[in-house]
């Protein structure tokens, strides 16, 4: 068989398997998500991230299947049993194929850029005026949350459904990383630096905060709870906290704010 004759079977296999896998993913992904393969999504940021991952999965399927099919076809069709006695066709390359390969690569990269920069713009959008401001202070091995709008602090994070939150993350000692898996919120807690992250929780429930940066002996225990509640529940909680504030065991963490921020609010 000549080269063209050999190309037919793997190309058909490539197309068919890619379509099958894409269809499988299309129908299976929601089921798997329900079954707990990914955390239950609870914010706009997480929705955005997993949407992008889904698009990437569709884009990856033909790439993955293409390489595997052609490699496997070579393995099964061109296999020599024992030491080969003759040689293969001495082809030193194919400029036209190289051109198409590069063109396809750049098209794929461009698609990635469009998706990526679009997602990045959403991620970096400034916090709206209505945002709740939470100062997250990590230290070995707890997170402390200060609601700067109300000047109260807490060891459990309470958030309001559908109200944007601006987290400002910092650390008292070593590197930590503040992560809420269900909300796609992640920001390193770097001592001496402020790191902001904006997200809008969009589902009521109890979630987890995990530390994502190895921070010492009890790193694996550095988990706390997040509660997303309705605005009225949150209001009740805030007023309770404000009434007991002087006795609160978690005093607001005083950071040398002036040293870190200049008048424009950026790090000096």
């Amino acid at each position, binding site marked *: 068989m000549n080269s063209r004759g*050999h190309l037919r079977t793997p190309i058909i296999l490539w197309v068919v398997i890619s379509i099958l896998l894409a269809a499988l993913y299309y129908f299976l992904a929601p089921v798997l998500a329900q079954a707990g393969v*990914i*955390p239950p999504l609870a914010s706009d940021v*997480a929705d*955005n*991230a997993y949407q*992008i*991952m889904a698009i990437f999965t569709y884009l*990856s399927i033909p*790439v*993955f299947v293409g*390489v595997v099919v052609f*490699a496997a076809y*070579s*393995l099964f069709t*061109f296999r*020599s049993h024992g030491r*080969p006695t003759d*040689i*293969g*066709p*001495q*082809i*030193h*390359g*194919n400029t036209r194929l*190289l051109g198409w390969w*590069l063109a396809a*690569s750049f098209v794929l*990269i461009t698609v990635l850029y469009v998706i*990526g920069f679009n*997602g990045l713009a*959403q*991620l*970096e959008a400034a916090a709206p005026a209505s945002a709740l401001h939470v100062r997250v202070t990590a230290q070995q091995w707890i997170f402390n949350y200060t609601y700067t709008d109300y000047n109260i602090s807490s060891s459990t994070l309470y958030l309001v459904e559908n109200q944007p939150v601006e987290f400002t993350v910092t*650390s008292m*000692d070593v590197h930590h*990383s503040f*992560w809420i*898996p269900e909300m*796609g919120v*992640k920001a*390193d807690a*770097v*001592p*001496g*630096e*402020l*790191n902001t992250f904006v997200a809008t929780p969009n589902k009521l429930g109890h979630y987890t905060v*995990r530390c*994502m*940066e*190895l921070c*010492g*002996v009890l*790193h*694996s225990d550095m*988990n706390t709870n997040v509660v997303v509640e309705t605005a009225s529940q949150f209001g009740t909680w805030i007023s309770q906290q404000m009434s007991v504030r002087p006795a609160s065991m978690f005093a607001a963490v005083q950071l*040398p704010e002036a*040293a870190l921020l200049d008048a424009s609010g950026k790090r000096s």
Partner: protein
Amino acid sequence: MSWTRKLVPSYFSGAVLAAIGFIVGSQYVWRVIGGANWDFNDPGLIGNFLEQGFLAGFVLMTFGWLIGIGAFKYPLSWMLGLKDPDHNEELRLAGKGDGIIRYFRFTTDHKVVGIQYLVVTMIMLAFGGLGAMLIRTELMFPGAWAFPKETYNTIVTMHGMLMILTVISFFVGPFGNFVIPIMIGARDMAFPRLNALSIAFLIIAMAVYAFIPFMGIGDPITTGAGVQTGWTVYGTLADQTGIGVDALAMAVILAGISSQMGAVNLITTVIAMRAPGMSYTRMPMTVWGSIGASILAALGTASLTVDLVMIISDRVFRTSFFFAATAGDYAGSGYVGGGSAWLTQNLFWFFGHPEVYLLVLPAFGFVMDMASVFSRKPLFGYKTAILGLMGVVVLSFLVWMHHEFVSGFLPELRGFYMASTELISVPTGLIFLVLLGTMWRGRIWMTVTMGFVFAFTWSFLIGGITGIYLSDVPADVQLHGGMFVTAHFHYTIVGGALMGFLGAVYYWFPKMTGRMMDEKIGWISFWGIQIGFNGTFLAMFYVGLQGMPRRVADYSPLFAGGNLVASISAFVLGASVILYFYNVIYSWKAGPIAEANPWGAKTLEWTTPTPVPLENFGEIPVVTSGPYNYAEPATPSGVPARGVEAGPAIG
């Protein structure tokens, strides 16, 4: 007495002087300097003197070792103006007339150094693998059931760093030294003494590394012995962890010096020592891949060395490179503040990202060569392959900040680093084009090596595609720092570099030892490794998607299923690697004698007799065509005629 002449200088006398050096250095600080000031009521001082003593010990230990193995003999004789060694003395230094003892000496013959590297890196691989098994034991079930958490963190750190050092060394060390000079038609490396020195530095680095788990036992300040930082040794945590971090830093600095010496040597060798007719476009891809890795090693390693020196400095001299706070927090500790915690991340990853390409670039080259040999076809696009390799080299220095997408450091630059990271998939894609094109319509001979080539293609494909997810900022924010990342880079480093290495050992074993590796055991271990490896890390992708962080001793029961699968598969992987090692040792002793060119390759190393004589070639060959010219007839002995005799250029 003949035995003293054999043993002095050798690695044995080196070990003795190293031990003496360590004792002198540490005791001098502890007893002479520290003796008067040793205030047991001041925990800060105790820690400080302890680690200063260890550091002085490590430095003198290194010097003792180098003196003991005779590394200073020739530099000293040159400094004293004695005559240059003549050719006979050079040959004696290269181990002429020595038996097995030349493998335990400062020997300049590149083939001896290559074998030394092979043995040392395989021992390192074994210990790193042991660490992996311990990690998977702890993670088999939720709850820190096997080890205390501080021990677990130390194991994680030691596994990570040791494996990185292993993979840095295990291509350009054994094969770069043994194979590449012969491949390009040279008599030896450009700097044979530097070559012997580089393995000596790696050995002493590993000796220092072995101190880590024992340092800090009973330390009153920190909990437990060892290092709690993970292999990233971020300066902030590195300062407050146990004194084991000093051993880690010293060991990695020494290993970095070793790899830089090796890299400079290899680059010079390839530039200056090629045989007549061996133009840059006739070098096998193995050489190109190793050159790419050496460029990265020569340029990138410095950044990590600087980082580690700063960490030692912060700990011992109370500088504040990584401490931002200016008042209050460190009152009484002696720290001044004013540094930056981001600095440690940047310094580390400016090394760290070129470094991961340094790990796989040789694998790219090796695998392309093996694919060509076992398909009996020239490379599908020689210049395409070079473009791919060198494209990766250039781009790899422009992507490091993707490790800091969530660090808050200059978030406005994230777009650029996302773009450059995704761009790197273009040159990497070219490698796949070359691999697939080379196998296409070939005469594929399924040796174990070729099996590893297919395994490389499969694993690196998965590693590369998952890398795309991680390069995208919004997706990365979710996946960053989790088990998904761990699985991703194991797919590239184990699935890419280690598969390439295991294939390469199998491929060049007949050249290095004169014997064939056992094929049956080879295939059993191959399938065990594939099943174990894919099971482990596919399960790790799964728990990563579920939201499991990295480097945790304990985890939520939510992740129990995936971790159990990963652990059991990891044990299969471990057992199979042990079987592979057994195959190496067994075949080295009792394998069937190899013929001159068992694979029918066309590269120069197969034209030399086995064992390869000192200085490799009776007469330097004149190369007349490229390394993949399978159309050229072979001589009756099975040794290809290519390159051994002068003639008109064909290719």
